[in-house]
């Protein structure tokens, strides 16, 4: 079983602060995706990283895939209250060639206070 562990589970910060969320595994993933989920809704795709060491930026969000493709991070600069939500990482294990099932982390619940 390929596990993705996210940390921290909960994060409460003030508007304007920076933060980093981590997604770690002992397994290798062929790709890793970050989602944001609002209560009662489906996960919304933010970014996909594929190449080890890859860095992608989405406005104030910076995503990095570890060199060994076992871990990833999400860094938010100057957080805003609109960033509040549940952030999920999910990956396709490298040995999964058939169905491309996503393995999800437990999520990081972020609250940004004005």
């Amino acid at each position, binding site marked *: 079983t390929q596990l993705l562990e996210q940390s921290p589970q909960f994060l409460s910060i003030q508007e304007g602060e920076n933060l980093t969320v981590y997604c770690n595994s002992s397994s290798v993933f062929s790709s890793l995706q970050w989602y944001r989920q609002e209560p009662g809704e489906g996960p919304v795709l933010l970014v996909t990283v594929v190449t080890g060491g890859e860095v992608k930026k989405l406005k104030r969000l910076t995503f990095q895939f570890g060199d060994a493709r076992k871990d990833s991070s999400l860094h938010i600069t100057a957080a805003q209250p609109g960033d509040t939500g549940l952030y999920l990482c999910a990956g*396709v294990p490298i040995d999964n060639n058939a169905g491309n099932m996503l393995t999800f982390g437990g999520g990081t619940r972020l609250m940004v206070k004005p």
Partner: protein
Amino acid sequence: EPEVTQTPSHQVTQMGQEVILRCVPISNHLYFYWYRQILGQKVEFLVSFYNNEISEKSEIFDDQFSVERPDGSNFTLKIRSTKLEDSAMYFCASSEGDPGTGAYEQYFGPGTRLTVT
């Protein structure tokens, strides 16, 4: 922007009844998935479907469950003889598939909340 849609948004059923959850994937996508999320827990993979057949299924997806693509647009999940522990949010997802890079970006629907009483 194309999106995955799911109906109904909320389904209440009695234990032992059968339910069918419906999904309309993004039109040019080739891979279809069902996931579930029990309240407060991780999103869990149930099944993937490609080329009109199941390509992978999890341990959760036992004989109680079945999937079907009855026409060119719908993708359904049938749960027979529902149990209390089947209560969860059920998400449909679809992906276009990108064999070259291995990036199979999956786009999720809004979910169906299933409540078994």
